């Protein structure tokens, strides 16, 4: 268990996106991955930045600037990666989500409930 407060759903999405993107996690790619994960919900890019700032303040992620690139008009990308506490917080959230899923699945019968919706 981590010492930090439980993650909100959007924070879980952002951390999952960073986890899966590995070396390529920066604003644009994180936003695109969250839109895939949260489909059909539309996600605002600004909300992603605000959440990244909050997660960085909680020391769950770390960021750094890359070398400037031509396609960005000579600007750098801000890359992100999970910190140890971030990985632990995401693991806690995944365990809670699995327990919720198993409870619902036991009640509604496997994946049938998902297919009905």
């Amino acid at each position, binding site marked *: 268990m981590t010492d930090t407060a439980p993650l909100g759903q959007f924070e879980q999405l952002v951390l999952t996106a960073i986890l899966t993107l590995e070396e390529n996690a920066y604003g644009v790619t994180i936003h695109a991955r969250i839109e895939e994960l949260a489909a059909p919900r539309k996600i605002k890019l600004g909300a992603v930045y605000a959440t990244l700032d909050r997660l960085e303040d909680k020391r769950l992620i770390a960021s750094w600037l890359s070398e400037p690139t031509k396609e960005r008009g000579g600007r750098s990308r801000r890359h992100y*990666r999970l910190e140890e506490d971030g990985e632990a917080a995401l693991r806690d959230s995944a365990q809670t989500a699995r327990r919720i899923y198993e409870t619902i699945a036991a009640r509604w019968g496997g994946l049938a409930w998902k297919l009905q919706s």
Partner: protein
Amino acid sequence: MEAPELRSPPERLERLVQALIPPAAREAVAGDLRELYQSSPQYISMAARTIPFVLISHIRRNANPPVLAIQGFFLFCCIMAVSLVPEGPLGRALAVALSALFLIGMLLADAYQGADPPSPKRAIIETILVTASVVMFVLHEIFALRAAHRLADSEFGLFMWALVPFAMPVLAGLRALMILARERREQLLGERMDPSELKAQYRHFQAQTRLRSWIQSLLLLGSAAGFACLCATYPVPAAALAWSLVSIYAVVGAYLLINGAAPGLPDKADFLSLRSLFQSELLRQHEIRRLIFWLWPTPLLFAVFAAVTTRPRSDIEPVLMLYALPATVLLCFFVAIINRERNSQIQEKIGILARMRQRQGP
């Protein structure tokens, strides 16, 4: 074969959007928006939906609630002292509304403050504008006091010849000197470092914060004890507020003693984690210092508040309006410029850390 031309927003539009993004996030956000560019309307729409979030996030990150409370308190006292503001509940409501507006303006100014220091010329102009505003306020009060036959000519002359000509060049000179001193200072952090060098820099920084926290904590706890004796011995106006001030000094002093110094290095910190820790501690230490710098003149603010708001304006001594209040305004301006200068230094250091690369090989 030639590479296909990259689609990019019109230069003027991009410059405008870039100016609206807070400097600390400008490079990353403006670059991301450019990567997502398809057409000008799409670019404008995306910028309009993104920038408010970025701005609010930066205001949240920069906001220091205790400092805001002190600044709000100070603004309220100053506005209440202006004779144009009516006395009574209406005047108080107006003062609260105007203080809130000023605070919002200050929060926006903080969010848009960059790492680059202003030019000495701009700093001098800022100082002249602030001192000129103080002079305008005092002149207005002088006319009001003279109309009420409450001011002798000698008091008027003393202010004009003593305070103003002294304050303006001194403040302007100090501000310009701080900027010039920063330009000459050697930059300790390099472009490339290996983890052991970064660890050594962090340990040095940690030792500095430990010593500073101890000294400040002792001074604050000592001052709290002194104020408590004063409040217990003499009848103090606005006693509840005076005891709150004593409590704030004691709480901040205790916090510094327990949690003021930067934390030790984690056992298994790699270069990235270490850099992240260094950046967040630089910011936290800056916020602590910002609060301490505002705490020291707070007893003076309290004295002005007690003098200005606990009796009718006709009973307030002219000397307070002509000397103490303008001197407090100039002192607070000085505290604000020290904090702003310090903030841009910290932002510069954080920027250097964000760009720093790990040195490869021996």
